[in-house]
């Protein structure tokens, strides 16, 4: 057995509402997401294109993280979570009955808001996913490759046995990225990966995302509009609908990042990117 191979054999389905050219890695067609009886998100049709960085922006509570976390079924861990609609990953509906969410998460990796390395050595952190997948090849090679990929190798190559928690915040986050890419997932979900980092560490992680884009499809939630303009190829803007009492997030518009920021189609997007509300 080797590490999970991307499902390249499966022919990806062309999305009906994918207005851009290029293949769609995850075609997210969420109609409604509930937490208990609370409608958190409605109408979020967000195609995630292969080999591109898709940025999710919007004010607090607009459901951008909720949508991101429903792409690898992390929301299943929250009590009362219910999703209407479907999410197609390379042609398969990951919310279909026969799908195992645990397996889905091995193909769609995740980097969290807070750096969260395990209380183990740097090496073991990166090797964690390989061991989980019963990888039989050369661990040192793969770990080094992943750490180089995450631009962390030169800083840690002499202390691979040191604790992952001994690193600085920015290094920890790059370690988490190395851990996520070690198993070579098809898609990488990043939930505000820089919000706990200083500007220099943020810069490094952003550069890293641009490098990773060649090999991975990335979906990035960010609170920082400048970050979206710097790294995202495509941007999805989410808004909050308070007309029905609760705060329900929905997709306002989605397009090339340049178009969203320069020539938004919607009034709301215009106001948001101009900094009129946040």
């Amino acid at each position, binding site marked *: 057995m080797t590490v999970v191979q991307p499902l390249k054999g499966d022919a990806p389905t062309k999305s009906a509402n994918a207005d851009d050219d290029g293949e769609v890695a995850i075609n997210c067609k969420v109609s409604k997401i509930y937490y208990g009886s609370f409608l958190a998100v409605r109408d979020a049709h967000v195609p995630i294109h292969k080999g591109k960085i898709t940025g999710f922006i919007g004010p607090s509570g607009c459901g951008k993280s909720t949508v991101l976390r429903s792409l690898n079924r992390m929301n299943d861990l929250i009590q009362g979570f219910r999703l209407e609609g479907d999410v197609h990953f390379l042609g398969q509906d990951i919310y279909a009955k026969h799908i195992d969410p645990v397996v889905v*998460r091995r193909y769609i*990796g995740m980097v969290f808001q807070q750096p969260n390395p395990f209380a*183990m050595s740097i090496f073991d952190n990166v090797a964690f996913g390989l061991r989980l997948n019963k990888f039989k090849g050369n661990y040192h090679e793969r770990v080094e490759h992943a750490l180089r990929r995450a631009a962390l190798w030169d800083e840690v190559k002499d202390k691979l046995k040191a604790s992952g928690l001994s690193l600085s915040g920015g290094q920890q986050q790059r370690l988490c990225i190395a851990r996520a890419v070690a198993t070579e997932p098809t898609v990488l979900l990043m939930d505000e990966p820089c919000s706990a980092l200083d500007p220099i560490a943020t810069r490094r992680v952003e550069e890293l995302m641009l490098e990773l884009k060649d090999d991975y499809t990335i979906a990035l939630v960010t609170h920082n509009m400048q970050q979206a303009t710097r790294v995202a190829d495509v941007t999805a803007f989410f808004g909050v609908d308070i007309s029905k009492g609760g705060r329900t997030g929905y997709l306002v518009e989605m397009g090339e990042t340049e178009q969203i920021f320069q020539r938004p189609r919607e009034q709301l997007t215009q106001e948001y990117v101009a900094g009129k509300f946040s």
Partner: protein
Amino acid sequence: MTDTTAPRTTSEPEEDDAPVLSHSWSDSRALRNNMLTIGAWLVALIAAIPLISVLYMLIVQGGSRLSTDLFTELPPAGFEMGGGFGNAIVGTILMVVIASIIAVPIGVLGAAYLAELGPDSQFVYAVLVLAMGTYSAIAGGVALAILMLPTVVLTAEEAMKMVPRKMKDAALGMGCTRTQMIWKVVFPTALPGILTGVMLGVARVAGESAPLLFTALFSNYWLSSLREPTASLSILIYNFSSMPFDNQIELAWAASLVLVLIVLVFNILSRLFGRPKY
């Protein structure tokens, strides 16, 4: 600290009204700080007095009888001189080991259930204790295990709850099942806390005499089978301390000291092996 001419970052010349940066004992803030520090020391000392006095008594009264005889000889009869309590040491260690073999896996797994999976903790705990309760008459070890369980369960549960949520999320995000998350991340991270709980349980149970009176009883001979009445230090202390013979009373003191030393050694060992590695 006594340097009155603190380095100044600005280029303005030294003036008479320059702020006083030197340390002053009469300053009310410093005064209060010192008073509180002294107060905290005093209180800590008072708390340690009973502990130290007990240890002092044990060493003074039992220390004189410390010799290898204690570990090799059997308890003396009425008017005999000398003797030891080797069989009671063996019995105590054996029963504590039996108790640990029973209580640690059940306690730790039960705690894992309570901390990570189970919704209703008190109910499960009651069931656990009741179910074990029916076997309590079989041997001292089982009786001690029952006494150990609550300590182990509660401390292990707390230790597992202390493992940060974000670390558990990381494990699930990598594609761990809940079981894998508990084995690969929660247990290793919580190990020092779990061991502390086990040691607390061992320390408690090693000095317990009441449950052994009705389960293991006592014996004046070396242990030959697990199904026979078995000697223990706590029962020996209980018996000998009320005897009218000086020799036995001295032995009771020595046994108390040995019991404390055994628990101490256990504790030091668990600290050594359970130290957080990362």
